[in-house]
Every structure is written in C-alpha cells, then in structure tokens.
C-alpha cells in the first residue's frame, strides 16, 4: 500500500473510482461536489478513460443508462438538486437491472436549498425517489479513507447484483481533507465481462434485450418478483455497519456518515460524564442494519438517532427497535452540522428524563 497523501473527500472519491475500474463518467457540476467532476475532467483523459460533461443532470443520467447497457463500469456524481433531476433515469436503470454507481454529496434542501452539508436525502436514496418497486444499494462513508475503500465495494456490488449503487456522502466529507492511502488500480480480470446480457454488437449471438418495460402486467409482475429475489439476497448478504463501544453501552446512538463520526467525540464526552454511550453506525443504509439495532434494544435503555435532517433514518431505527425502549431523535437541518457538545447536551436531556 502506498504512502498516505492529503486529499479532499471529493478528489479522493474520484481517484478511487478510477482505480476501481470506472471507465466512463458523465456528469454536471454542482456545489459541494464540483471538485469531483473537475478531478475527473483532468484525470480521465490522462489515463485513457472517457469523461463527458453533459448539458444537464437529465442528460447525464440517460448517458449512464446507455453506457451501463454495455456492462462498462460507469458512474456519475452530483448533489441533492442534481440527484432529484436524475430520478427518472435512476428508476429506469434499476428497472433494467443495470450496474452503475451514483454519488450524492448531499447539501441542505429542500428545493435549491444551500451548499452546506446535510443528510436530508435519506428518504430519496433509500425509499425510492424515482417511481416503481425498486431498490438501490445505498452506502454511506464516515471518513475519507472509508469513502475511498467504498468506491471499490460500490462497483463490485453493482456488478454482482446488476443493480445501481448509491453512495450518500455530504458536503463536509466532500470538502474536508484527510490523509488517505489509495489502493492500486484493479486489474481488468477483476471486472465481470457480462457477456451474457451486455449490448456490444449482436454479431452471431442470440439477441440481448434490456428494458424496464412490459405492457403485460403478468410479465411485469414477474420482472418485479425477480428483482425482489435479488433484493432479498442483498439484504441477506450485504448489510454493513460499525459498532463502537457497544459492549457496555446503556445508550445506543445510531447515526451514519459524518454524523456517525462526530458522535464518537460526543460519546467520549458522555462517558467522561458517566453516561455509557455507544454507537451503531449504519454503513449500508439499504440494506439497513436492522438486526444489530434490534439486538441492541434488548440490552440498552435508549436508542437515540442523530441526523443532519429533521429525522429520516430514525423511522428505520424505530421499526427495528419496535417500541422496546425510548427512541429519541436529535437533528439539525438546512446545512447546519450538529457539534459534539450540542449532541451531548441533547443526550443529557433525554437521559435525565429517562433515569
């Protein structure tokens, strides 16, 4: 492994994607993600890859749809309003069972919002966003190193399940700098060839058809049921999370991404004050790590969710806890990042009300 270098989160994710075999990138600039597309614009021609700045996010996502049909590793990156514009295409890509990787460097919303960090696109990422019965595999990194490693995971998962993968980062992760180790470029043999379905010129082989469309509801239901078999396999095999100081915890925090990382400092403050807090940090937001949260609810006195939103993931946490213990929520929205001390004060209020 190489020496550590200092990179912005956006740049680190871009370089990691290329090392993970991304051949083609389509995108449209938007803050706080723009360093990512800028890095791709400079770097991809240098190493013989294809970069294209589309005329809009709507165009970019449909270019991804086309490129994904060839089984080539393809991605885009954007930020909240841009990802909203891509929703139709994302639904088509999911419906057509195509591998592709999306990065949403989330900013404050709704609407045009602002350019500060947020986590208010959780519903959009994990519960649809686009129309129809589809699922994205959704991953969220807490550090730049984790984001780098996650790019490799994301392309592998997309290929393995023929399903789009979404990485939910936030403006803070995109803009911050941290030393990282970049893994080497993967060798081409690690990428599945997808000969059985990809469109690369028919020649003498049987015709391949890629579509998300069937006017016959019986056939369309079959397509959906087949997708749900895949989703079930993903739920069985691809749950990812981190537990931090949970062994003796009386309070379990649940938080993902940047917020999960901030909570590690809150937990130190809490333990200094005699409150035994721990953390379950979902790394895969879908499939959601429901089991460890359900099991924690058997042992702890409280499961507290903290988000940079008015409360979105907390709904999944409450489903997992099923009313066994109180499930308070603390969040800030509109681009405000809760500080470690602020969350500690919120924890103290909830804890004192409980004991």
């Amino acid at each position, binding site marked *: 492994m190489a020496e*550590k270098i*200092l990179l912005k989160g956006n740049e680190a994710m871009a370089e990691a994607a290329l090392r993970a075999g991304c051949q083609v990138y389509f995108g449209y600039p938007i803050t*706080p993600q723009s360093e990512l597309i800028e890095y791709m614009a400079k770097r991809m021609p240098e190493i013989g890859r294809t970069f294209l700045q589309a005329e809009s996010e709507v165009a970019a996502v449909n270019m991804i749809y086309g490129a994904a049909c060839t089984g080539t590793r393809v991605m885009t990156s954007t930020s909240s309003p841009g990802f909203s514009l891509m929703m139709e295409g994302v639904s088509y890509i999911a419906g057509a069972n195509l591998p592709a990787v999306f990065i949403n460097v989330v900013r404050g919303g709704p609407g045009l919002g*602002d*350019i*500060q960090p947020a986590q208010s696109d959780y519903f959009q990422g994990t519960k649809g966003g686009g129309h129809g019965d589809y699922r994205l595999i959704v991953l969220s990194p807490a550090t730049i190193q984790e984001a780098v490693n996650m790019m490799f995971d994301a392309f592998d998962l997309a290929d393995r399940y023929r399903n789009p993968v979404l990485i939910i980062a936030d*403006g*803070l992760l995109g*803009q*911050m*700098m*941290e*030393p990282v180790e970049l893994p080497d470029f993967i060798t081409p043999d690690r990428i599945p060839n997808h000969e059985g379905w990809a469109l690369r010129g028919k020649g003498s082989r049987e015709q391949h058809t890629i579509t998300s469309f069937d006017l016959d509801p019986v056939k369309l239901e079959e397509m959906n049921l087949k997708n749900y078999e895949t989703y079930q396999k993903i739920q069985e095999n691809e749950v990812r999370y981190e537990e931090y100081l949970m062994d003796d915890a009386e309070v379990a925090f649940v938080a993902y991404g*940047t917020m999960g*990382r*901030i*909570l*590690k*400092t*809150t*937990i*130190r403050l809490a333990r200094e004050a005699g409150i035994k807090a721990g953390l379950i940090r979902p790394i895969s937001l879908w499939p959601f790590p429901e089991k460890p949260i359900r099991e924690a609810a058997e042992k702890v006195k409280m499961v507290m969710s903290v988000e940079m939103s008015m409360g979105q993931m907390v709904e999944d946490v409450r489903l997992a806890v099923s009313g066994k213990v109180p499930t308070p929520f603390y969040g800030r929205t509109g*681009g405000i*990042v809760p*500080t*470690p*001390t*602020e969350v500690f004060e919120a924890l103290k209020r909830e804890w004192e009300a409980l004991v």
Partner: protein
Amino acid sequence: MNRPVQKYHSTIISGFGGQGVMLIGQTLTSAAMMEKLYVTWIPSYGPEMRGGTANCTVVIDETPIGSPVIDRPTDVIAMNIPSLLKFEKTILPGGTLLLNTSVIDREPTRADIRVYRVNAGEIAGKIGSDKVANMVILGAFVGITRVVSLESVRLALEKKIGEKRPELLAMNLQALKAGENAIAGQ
C-alpha cells in the same frame, strides 16, 4: 519551551479571505501527516469565502479522530477582529489564542486562556512581502504549541510551494522562522 507537548490540538484559523488562512491550515495538516499523526482539515466553504471572514478547522491527534467539527477548540488563530469576536469565547479553558496584532487593535477579554500576540504584517513587510504574514503566524503557532516540528512545516511548505512557485519558497521559510522568533519570551 519546556511545557509538556500535548499532541491533541483542535485549532480554528480565521481571518479575511485573502489572508491565507486556508494555507496555514493545509500546511499544518500536511506537516502533521508527515509526522504520521491523525489529522483532519475542514474549510468554511459557504458564502463566507466570498469577501467576509474565512476559517478552517484542523484537528490533530495520535489516535483516530472522531469529530472534525469543533465547537470548543483548544486553540484559535485570529487574523482579524471579526475572528476574535467570533471565536475567543469558544476556546477551551487553558487553551491558546494567537492574535495577529497588525490587524487586531483590541484586547481579548478572557483571563482563563493563554494569549500570544504577533505583528505578522510588520514582520512580513520586513521580510519583503505582506503576503507571507500567514507563514509568520504559522511559525509562531508551531513555536507556541510544538504540535509538529518546524522542520515538518518546512518540508510541507517545500512540497506545497516549492513545486509550483520555487522563487517564493525562501521568503516563506524566512517568515516561518521569524514567526517562531517573535513569540520567544511571550
């Protein structure tokens, strides 16, 4: 300079856009990385970057860093008056406040922090350019905290500036050293 060296530092560096506060933070971050410490750098990247005050936060530790977002820093470097007004009250008791007195003409009010004063503009002017005032301040900060060695900062600067603008390197290195000298005796 015989104080025990504490490696955990959370530092907010704040000033006007154009005073080079981001470069102070990034250079400190690179130096920490060279010493194999854990380090994070976050900028204020909003509308603040356009004309008003700009700030960045650097967290350095010997163990993995939790929050890169800091509301109670161990140190503040204030390059202008709005920064002093905004961040003096946030410093942890016993923490450090470093003031750029070439711009800040007022006194802090806290008695439970250590205050250092450096006339960075004047020192930089003597070296040959107002623009290296940020490196004077960085030299002073490293002299005060010893969070990294001045040698690591020098190497970080050589890497950062030396490759693109080698003609500016000597002046920046001189500024670092002058900053360290400026806090001697404070």
